[in-house]
């Protein structure tokens, strides 16, 4: 890898004598701690983009990524690190941000620092309204949850119980589903919010059973607790009883699927990206990202947010020619449309959030015994319904 870069650098310097600047991009994410896997996916997405797009150079400019670790949601630390990235490292772009509060903390800096922020994951709708210099290339919980209500209605389900983790994104998912399902004419018979630190979900499943709902809509953060939740769903006989399991795709992220295994088969999720998505762009992306992450089984959705985030940053750098002008950079990518590994996407010119397809997927098993999210339906060009709810 290094050799390639060096030889390319040599080749380019031989061809043109133009002076090359190094443009730094500061990436803040959880690279250690309980969410290390998601941070690793950020890095894989970024590495994959760089590897497939000119090996760290845009024109005459070198690109350098500076990583900073915020293991768990910690806005104060996030802000201190972002400040340091701007004033000490001199980064021209801030990117990454897995958690909403971490992204929120940075927003007051942007204007003064003249730095755009590309949110590669944090999924609360309101973030984007905090500064005109923010662009989001991931998704919002509203965006991925709302279509599920339509799916439920289409499948003839009229009574649903929602079960979410009791924190921001969980509440978002609950509201998104309730609002949309209500508009579709369905009833949410009960809404349960459970503490994040729940280990045994049997009592919750008992509640689900007692509620008499035909389906359960669930949201939990990706990671260890989803495993217990899905198992409890099976072991308490809800699957047998025909209570359909609905969720946004966070619950069945690809890196958790091997652990979830057979009990997860048949779960319906709506999400913006499946590693199994069938397109030439995605094949190339998965190949590059798998190489970057080392173990392909660890690849998950934050990687694509990071990959597309890099695409936006590259476009911004091209538009500004490497000079630091945050507003110009952001204006340049408003309305930008491209073919992402997840499908066709566009940065909405008004909201600066990504408009994208949301897919209905079902957890299925390959013949070789591995599991994947099988896309069975597409909701095209979905914006963020959550923004309306914010205002």
């Amino acid at each position: 890898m290094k050799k390639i870069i060096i030889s390319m650098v040599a080749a380019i310097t031989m061809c043109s004598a133009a002076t090359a600047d190094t443009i730094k991009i500061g990436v803040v994410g959880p690279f250690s701690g309980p969410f290390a896997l998601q941070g690793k996916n950020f890095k894989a997405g970024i590495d994959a983009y760089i590897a497939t797009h000119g090996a760290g150079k845009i024109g005459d400019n070198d690109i350098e990524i500076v990583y900073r670790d915020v293991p768990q949601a910690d806005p104060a630390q996030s802000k201190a690190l972002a400040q340091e990235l701007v004033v000490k490292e001199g980064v021209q772009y801030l990117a990454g941000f897995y958690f909403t509060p971490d992204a929120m903390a940075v927003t007051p800096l942007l204007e003064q620092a003249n730095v755009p922020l590309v949110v590669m994951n944090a999924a609360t709708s309101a973030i984007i309204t905090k500064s005109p210099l923010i662009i989001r290339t991931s998704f919002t919980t509203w965006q991925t949850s709302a279509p599920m209500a339509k799916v439920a209605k289409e499948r003839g389900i009229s009574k649903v119980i929602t079960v979410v983790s009791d924190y921001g994104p969980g509440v978002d998912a609950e509201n998104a589903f309730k609002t949309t399902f209500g508009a579709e004419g369905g009833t949410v018979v009960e809404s349960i919010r459970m503490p994040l630190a729940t280990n045994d979900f049997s009592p919750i499943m008992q509640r689900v059973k007692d509620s008499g709902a035909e389906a359960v809509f669930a949201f939990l953060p990706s990671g260890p607790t989803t495993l217990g939740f899905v198992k409890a769903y099976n072991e308490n006989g809800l699957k047998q009883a025909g209570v359909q399991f609905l969720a946004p795709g966070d619950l069945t992220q690809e890196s958790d699927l091997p652990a979830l295994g057979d009990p997860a088969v048949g779960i319906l999720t709506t999400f913006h990206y499946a590693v199994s998505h069938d397109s030439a762009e995605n094949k190339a992306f998965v190949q590059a990202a798998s190489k970057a992450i080392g173990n392909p089984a660890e690849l998950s959705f934050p990687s694509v947010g990071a990959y597309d985030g890099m695409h936006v940053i590259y476009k911004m750098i091209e538009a500004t020619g490497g000079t630091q002008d945050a507003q110009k950079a952001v204006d340049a990518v408003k309305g930008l449309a491209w073919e992402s590994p997840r499908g066709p996407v566009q940065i909405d010119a008004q909201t600066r959030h990504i408009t994208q397809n949301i897919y209905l997927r079902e957890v299925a098993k390959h013949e070789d015994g591995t599991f994947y999210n099988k896309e069975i339906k597409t909701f095209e060009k979905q914006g963020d319904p959550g923004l309306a709810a914010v205002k």
Partner: protein
Amino acid sequence: MQTVFSIAIDALAYGMVLFVISIGLSVTMGLMRVVNLAHGAFAMIGGYIASYAVRDLGLAYGFAVLLAVFATIIIAIPVERLLYRRIYGAPELTQVLMTIGITFCVIGIANYVFGPTLKTIPLPEHLRGPIDLGFRSIAAHKLFAIGCGAAVALGLWYLIERTSFGVKLRASVDNASMAAALGVRTQVVYAASFAIAVGLAAFGGVVGAELLPIEPYYALRYMVTFLVVVSVGGAGSIPGALLACLLLGGIDTTGRYLMPEYGEFFFYLAVIVIVSFFPRGLLGKAN
């Protein structure tokens, strides 16, 4: 009525899982007087070994459990020799610092070696499905965990109260220098009970993996729960730990059924009430 039974069964199963994992900590804290925050780290090591043995080596579940227990003990022996021996009898805060340090190291190494993804320990066929109890079905592995908990409780009680090793252990705990003067090799006794505690941690990590899945952050994520259990029960008391687990399991499960939104409040308020009234734990011995 059916619901009450159903909740009771869930509570029993959850409590027993907690018991199997926490009892080792009760031994280290009560008998060896070490605030061992790295207890979860040993449970996690056990879980990783079992997962590796079943998934990658294709060993049978039973063998994997044994392997996990013994391999974790073998890993723990040098740790005890080099690190724990320095903190026996040290102030609590020093012990906290050391064992948190060990936990951080184990987390970092596990993350490096096994990666950050969840690791499961595939169960054997007959533990996999649900078992019908008549009024409801329950996962077979939960019944298995209940059985393991009961077996561990009985075995430990026998070991400590009825064997000569138990006598030596209790003697060393009560008065180490007197015990040594009477010919008890306290170092050996300590090392052996440390090994037992670690073995129990590993066993608990494997048996409890269905509820508390194995991943690198396991070691810190559940540390608080283990500490709470030991403290409520009274450090070093096996019946106390059992009682605490059943009680806390019951409170937690009922709380989460009746009002899941306030589940956390329910649980910790109960802990505060219990600990305020029984500062030495439910069945802890007064010093």
